[in-house]
């Protein structure tokens, strides 16, 4: 469970999960929503995968991410977002 809290502690990762709530997206589509470097985004994806909050599949040259949240984790994400910690997609986010 601690890996879940660690994953949800970052506004970037919460925003990634929010975007994935709409539909599965490629790594490129997700990275385009943030003004952070690709290696940094890769680290965020790795933390989310480690916490088992997303799953990834290779489709051709792209890696597609989809949400993998239990209802409790979904509620935790909403709880974290409701405290005004949400970020706008283009907003520069300091590293956690």
């Amino acid at each position, binding site marked *: 469970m601690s890996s879940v809290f660690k994953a949800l502690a970052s506004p970037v990762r919460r925003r990634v999960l929010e975007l994935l*709530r*709409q*539909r*599965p997206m490629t790594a490129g589509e997700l990275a385009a929503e943030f003004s952070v470097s690709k290696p940094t985004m890769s680290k965020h994806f790795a933390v989310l995968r480690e916490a*088992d909050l997303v*799953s990834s*599949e290779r*489709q051709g040259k792209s890696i*597609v991410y*989809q*949400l*993998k*949240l*239990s*209802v*409790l*984790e*979904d509620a935790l994400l909403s709880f974290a977002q409701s405290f005004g910690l949400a970020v706008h997609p283009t907003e520069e986010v300091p590293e956690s």
Partner: protein
Amino acid sequence: MSTPKLPRAVLFAGALFASVLLAAVAKKTGAIDPIMAKRVVVAAFSGLLVILGNSWPKLTPPLAARRDPARGQAADRFFGWVFVLSGLILLLTSVLAPSGVLMPLAGVMGMAAFGLATIGWARTAPGEPLPRPDSVRGAMLHLFFGLFWAFGLFLADWLWGDAVAQWLAIGMPILQGSVIAVQVTRARGLDRA
């Protein structure tokens, strides 16, 4: 050599089923009164509904198995939330409801949860393929089916009495067997395709 660990959800489900059996034995032997036994049974089934509903959206099928991944994902989330919230309300009901209305209330609420989940699924992801029978989701669907039948029995017992409820209980394994047969046949068809 390491021993494989049982998933936590399976252990919870086993404990809940054991509590139902214990409640039945305790009622027969007079260790607890019939109302308390009913409360334990409703609470155990509600707990199982919460556990299954919580896990459902996490067990995502591969993207290729979905007709429309976005709608399929939305349907899974709706399905999970309906069962978790219904299960929690039913848990409260098992503790707080007056003894006279406990079983019919649990029956109506349980059936309503399944009705809502089915309508939501049909509206959000029409034509989304059912999971393969060898998947965990396939096994969970059978547990959901069992719970649906259990809440139906609560209601039938109150409406028509023991005789009808007993016949319905006999019908359950026959229907469940038919569902498994359809799933297996379909899976073999998919494998050959």
